[in-house]
């Protein structure tokens, strides 16, 4: 017995009418990627706490300086190196906010100061409260710029390099090697001569090679993902390069991207402090959290408040960024979508 043969010819097939936007249509009730991510982020307590702390510090950076009657460069040698003293908390001695220094002497009494300096004063008698919050403004800006540079230049560069591979990858990677090989310090010292110190020069210095770490990480991850099945599948389905990179590869690299960013931020904050120190960064008397830590470090054993308070703010910021970052990663990770 034989069944009648049916010729399989091309006429029997016709292209499915799939509109571009329906290509990956999801059967369950439509909920956008971002909306879903937001829902999941909100459920993550650590991430929410992180977000709240960041917002609070950012707000204080602008409100804080208004709360003190002293400007950030109001010097008075009669009130140098006062420890912190806060109304109401001054009677709880273990908090260390009673104006008594490490040797047990009430410096406010000794120096006949009636004012309360919530964060104490520095070696020139300047109010640390104002200086720290103004410094926080600068450091937040630096952190923001560093993150943007990483995200814009680093991801694009690394993505293109790995995705196209071959010659492109080869040349792009050799270029990174050259950038890192030329001593940074030489370039920075030359910049100091040409540029006026300020935010612009800090950004230029960071833009030169601050993003290379991110570029290399993204490249490594995309190299790894490029050969995997889902990429092949997507390509078979007719996805173009752009779509492949933005819809499939980048979302899968988010974890390392977020971590690298959280590394970049403290590095940038201290890089700025280093630049200020050699004259390229902010011009004194302007301060940043990084430069306040640098300045206060030497007197850690005798005036600990000078270093501890800005350090605590940096650490708080960093921990919050990381908690938020981890939350974001979980929220944005396509694999964890339920």
């Amino acid at each position, binding site marked *: 017995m034989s069944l009648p043969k049916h010729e399989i010819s091309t006429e029997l097939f016709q292209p499915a009418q799939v509109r571009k936007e329906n290509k990956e249509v999801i059967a369950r009730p439509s909920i956008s990627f971002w909306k879903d991510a937001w829902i999941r982020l909100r459920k993550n307590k650590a991430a929410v706490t992180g977000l709240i702390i960041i917002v609070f510090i950012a707000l204080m950076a602008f409100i804080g300086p208004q709360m003190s009657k002293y400007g950030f*460069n109001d*010097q008075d*040698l009669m009130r*140098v*190196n006062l420890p912190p003293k806060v109304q109401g908390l001054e009677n709880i001695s273990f908090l260390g906010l009673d104006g008594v220094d490490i040797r047990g002497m009430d410096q406010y009494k000794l120096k006949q100061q009636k004012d309360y300096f919530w964060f104490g004063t520095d*070696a*020139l008698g300047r109010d640390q409260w104002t200086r720290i919050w103004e410094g926080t403004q600068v450091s937040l800006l630096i952190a923001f710029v560093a993150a943007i540079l990483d995200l814009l230049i680093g991801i694009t560069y690394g993505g293109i390099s790995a995705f196209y591979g071959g010659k492109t990858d080869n040349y792009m990677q050799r270029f990174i090697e050259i950038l890192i090989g030329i001593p940074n310090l030489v370039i920075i*010292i030359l910049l*100091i*001569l040409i540029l006026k*110190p300020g935010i612009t020069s800090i950004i230029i210095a960071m833009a030169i090679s601050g993003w290379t770490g991110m570029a290399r990480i993204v490249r490594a991850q995309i190299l790894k993902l490029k050969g995997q099945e889902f990429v092949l599948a997507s390509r078979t389905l007719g996805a173009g390069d752009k779509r492949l990179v933005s819809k499939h590869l980048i979302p899968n690299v988010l974890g390392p991207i977020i971590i690298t960013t959280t590394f970049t931020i403290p590095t940038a904050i201290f890089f700025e402090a280093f630049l200020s*120190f*050699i*004259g390229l960064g902010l*011009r*004194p*008397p302007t301060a940043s959290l990084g430069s306040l830590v*640098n*300045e206060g470090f*030497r*007197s850690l*054993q*005798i*005036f600990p408040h000078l270093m501890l308070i800005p350090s605590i703010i940096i650490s708080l910021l960093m921990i919050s960024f990381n908690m938020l970052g981890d939350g974001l990663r979980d929220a944005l990770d396509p694999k964890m979508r339920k």
Partner: protein
Amino acid sequence: MKKSKLTFLMALTLIFSLFLAACSGGKDEAKDPKPEGNDGTKTEKPAEPQVLNLTEVAELPSLDVSKAEDAASFQVLNNVMEGLYRLDKTDKPVPGVAESHEVSEDGKVYTFKIRKDAKWSNGDPVTAKDFVYSYHRTLNKDSAGSYQYIMGDIKNVNKIINPEDPMYGKVEELGVVAKDDHTLEITLENAVPYFVGLTSFATFYPQNQKFVESQGDKYALEANTLVYNGPFVLSEWKHEESWKMVKNDQYWDKDSVKLDEINVNVVKDVGTDLNLYNTNQNDLVGLSSEYVDQYKDNADFKTETEATMWYLKMNQKNPVFKNVNVRKAFSQAIDKESMVKVILNNGSVAANYLVPANFTNIDGEDFRAKYKDGFHAFDAAKAKSDWEAGLKELKKDKVEVEFLVGDTESSIKLATYIAAQLEKSLPGLKVTLNPQPFKNRLDLENKGQYDFELAGWGPDYQDSMTFLDMFVTDGGHNRMEYSNKKYDDLIKSAKTDLSDLKKRWENLQEAERILLEEDAAIAPLYQRGRALLVKPYVKDVFKHGFGADYSYKWAYIEGKQ
């Protein structure tokens, strides 16, 4: 493919472990016993060991007498070498290799008598020829030592080192002659009064020709490629790490030398230095101003005032500073007393003068005796009225200037204070800080690209001239377009006419008065001090005002146990 990968990995592991092995091998070698360990001091015999432990901030760049040019090297050379004379406790020159000297009537020819028992550490006698050889080697056109200029008072030196001069490179024309092995005759250009003190400076030390030539390229690069004639010899030199000086048995005055051993470790961080001091691994530590508050009640705390001056240089290329009233206003606008007490806090003294106190004297009278308090002391009201007068002449009511400073933490702190003081006393003034690394700052200063600058100067020799000749018209250290004929003339006559030293003295005092009182060319700030901790058992380490910082020849340890 798989196999090749495996071998590759194995090769990697092998390289890695070899590398580690090589490193740890290197470590073992370095393990040889060190005299000063953590507890080394406790286990030693009660008979007071004469060991001094010190630290230095940097590796020694060069111990070649003809090339040495930095404080750390001068410090070592001063203790392992010896010139004709050496400085004592009060910076007075005392006989070194020379047992005595005679000066001709016109004060230009010095005849030094070299002692017969002066020996090199290899047993060779130190002779007058060693000095001649050393000076020739230093001034030779191939040697290019940067301290050649300090010999400028000797006859023909400035011609020998000037390429434009027909005498360029002809060292045989030098005014230094060995009459015989034990007689050295030095002829000067002018009868300068400070020459004997100058012979204690490292560039004036002798060198052993036979030894130098036998070492070739290696000369002075290691402890054993150098020969010594001072109280100590360098017995060990681990680059970037440490060096050790031990008593020199061949030294003519070895009976006065009490220390057996001086260990110097390279420590760049003050915090580390203090931690070493507190664990008894270091006997002397200099404190930066940040640490003074912490240690000023410590029993070991000391301050000493140095002969280094700090001042503001105001660049007259800028029309604002061309105005003398503005300069006077700047000189009087800063509360220097509070500055030295609260910010520097290290023995620095507020100064309204350029030539430091207790630096030079004539017949027991200090240079400062005539104008004891200097000129233009702090006076906010007067500063303000001078400032307003200046602004009126400039037809301005607002002035913005840039303040060039070094990039160290302490100078930035000081500059921040000075800027705030100036802005407070002088309404309408805006000061912007411009911190720069050392070489950049020097470059900007040399090109005259600055408004005013925080600058300092330490003496090269014991005469007020080392400070005062800086600001002559077009002088190498002027760089602020200051020019005053009267001042120039006074300096010139003090340099060339040394027949009446008392008159010269008064001329120099007058030159300082013109510079500061009439012209307010610079605004003096303070005479630098240094805060330090010294262990109480360290005795008789002498501090010098110029040249090398310390002498250990007479030092000893007492009461350590």
